[in-house]
């Protein structure tokens, strides 16, 4: 495969996709640098898969423009396919074929030259740790193995950009961890990774992340900078006997940005420490006399929840008008 010269792995503006009257992806603009691990986060149905499919050339965008590997997403989608690896959330392997047969099949599809076939196959088997299962039916493999084999098949042709759509769903935590190590290794070799996930903790592995919600991108940046940006707000952990009741009680107090149940306690984010103290006093007088408050450094989870709540609050008026 000839080497492509391109600056940005992904560079799109105002990408849009509609299904009927439903706007799945609403004018998303982003750039991904070479060799970067770019995390694409958001709840289910937010438009992550739709975006990734448009970038891979298997869905045609309804609006917007851009390039992947320097190639136009509209006009050159077939050429793009030669330079990317795509792994969908279903681990697209043929379960009734053996490990080796799956690899052989995909190396045929990607037109790996004959002299490289064996080397690439051994590499993929080694990477997936499947040396002892070459002739096992793929259907019998555990999730983590399937996932690594699927990754191996998607990058047999050594693409410079890799699109992974929820690669870690349905896989145990240890395999998930191992998988992210593989992605990091690939990034060291200047292979760009574009990864969607709904596991917030996975965002920590990414160089930069975008948060997508209801088809719109509501945050973009390095995990660290997102944290510091949001940390001008105050985050507290409040434990009490009945956090669900307490959340409802404080949610609409002035100055409270967000309150969300978090296990046996709830996380409260406010505009200032003053507001938090007032909220605590309010709880002591009514809903939760036993509440104990502690200031915390927010996790990405806190930040996402608070971003989404803010988005919902600011759009509530709009959607009510629409109705």
């Amino acid at each position, binding site marked *: 495969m000839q080497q492509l010269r391109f600056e940005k792995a992904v560079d799109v503006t105002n990408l849009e996709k509609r299904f009927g009257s439903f706007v799945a992806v609403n004018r998303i603009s982003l750039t991904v640098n070479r060799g970067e691990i770019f995390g694409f986060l958001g709840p289910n149905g937010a438009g992550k898969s739709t975006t990734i499919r448009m970038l891979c050339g*298997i869905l045609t965008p309804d609006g917007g423009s851009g390039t992947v590997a320097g190639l136009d997403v509209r006009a050159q989608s077939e050429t793009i396919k030669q330079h990317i690896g795509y792994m969908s959330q*279903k681990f697209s392997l043929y*379960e*009734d074929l053996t490990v080796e*047969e799956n690899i052989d099949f995909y190396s045929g599809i990607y037109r790996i030259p004959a002299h490289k076939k064996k080397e690439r196959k051994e590499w993929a088997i080694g990477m997936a740790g499947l040396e002892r299962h070459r002739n096992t039916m793929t259907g019998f493999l555990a999730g983590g193995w399937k996932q690594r084999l699927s990754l191996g098949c*998607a990058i047999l042709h050594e693409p410079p950009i890799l699109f992974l759509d929820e690669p870690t769903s349905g896989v145990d935590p240890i395999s998930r961890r191992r998988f992210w190590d593989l992605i990091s290794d690939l990034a060291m070799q200047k292979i760009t990774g574009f990864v969607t996930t709904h596991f917030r903790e996975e965002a920590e592995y990414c160089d930069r992340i975008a948060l997508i919600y209801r088809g719109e991108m509501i945050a973009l940046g390095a995990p660290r900078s997102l944290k510091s940006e949001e940390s001008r707000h105050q985050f507290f952990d409040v434990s009490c006997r009945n956090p669900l009741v307490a959340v409802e009680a404080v949610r609409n107090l002035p100055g409270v940005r967000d309150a969300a149940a978090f296990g046996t306690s709830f996380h409260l984010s406010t505009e200032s420490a003053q507001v938090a103290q007032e909220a605590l006093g309010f709880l002591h007088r009514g809903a939760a006399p036993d509440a104990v408050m502690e200031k915390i450094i927010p996790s990405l989870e806190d930040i996402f929840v608070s971003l989404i709540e803010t988005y919902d609050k600011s759009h509530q008026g709009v959607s009510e008008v629409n109705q």
Partner: protein
Amino acid sequence: MIRKEFQHIGRDPRSLGLAFGLPMILLLIFGYALSLDVEQVPLIIWDQSRTPESMRLISLFSGSRYFTVVGGTAGYKEIDRALESREAMAALIVPIDFAAKVALGKEAEAQFFLDGSDANTATIALGYAEAIASAYSQSLSLAAIKKAGHRKGNLPVEMRARVWFNDDLESKNFIVPGIMAVILMINAALLIPLSVAREWETGTMEQLVSTPIKGPELVLGKLFPYFCIGMVNVLITIAIGRYVFLVPLKGSVVLLIAIAAIYLTAGLSLGILLSIVTKSQLAASQASLILSFLPAFMLSGFISPISQMPWPIRTITYLFPARYFVTVLKGLYMKGIGISHLYFECGMLCVYTLCLLALAVKNFQKKLA
């Protein structure tokens, strides 16, 4: 792509069964059971006359291969019961004055009952019965003419019928070839959509469309293995027809195989087209059942002749490739005609195939929506 598809089929006993087992079962069932011939109709007899004349008439029935005498009886009640219990399908009553009337040269009557619940069999059996009766009366008149002194007795008109192309009027001679049209359609229009739709359902199709493989490659890769299976089935059907059912193939085997290949490709393209449109195994197989299998069965002239259909339906038959193929099959098997008589059918099949294939390739966009 092609090799993978073979591996799939080899691995999946159900596919394998569908690919080879089902056609064979169909062939055997239809070959043996769907005999439209009526033979050995069980016949019950009430001979009231009990004379040499009545015996002769009865012996004509029992001697014929179309009837088997299952018993004698005395009374309408028993005839009723026998017909109701399906012990007999027909009953012959020779009245008491039969011999006397024959002797006098009067019109002698014999009563014949038929179980009409199976209309087709009843019609055919009635035809046989009438033929036997008229043969009997002919022999009577002949005897009378001779008696009257003519040395060489002759009837005024005698029709000598000869059936061409299927001398014995054996239905298996056209059912066995006709079944090939149905078998190929099953192959084509049932297996391919299942295979394509399965890829959509498991998500492997999403993977495939994200790779640089070209659309036509994908379509042909899917098509080829099933084409091979279909052709193997053609050969098996020809062989079984020849050696098990002893159906003679009067025309050219090569021509038959060539036209079968075209027909098969048409069916396969239709199958692919359907599965591209429906994307689910269930929907695809149901659609193919309605659009390919039933027409191959009902509208091809295989079971009932096209010329007997009302004109709107007759027009519809032109839309399905099976019609042309069945015509070809009948022509090749029974008439032994050559390509010169089949230009229209072959041409239509080719056009049909090319259109469907082009449509399939064109519609197979490497896109999800």
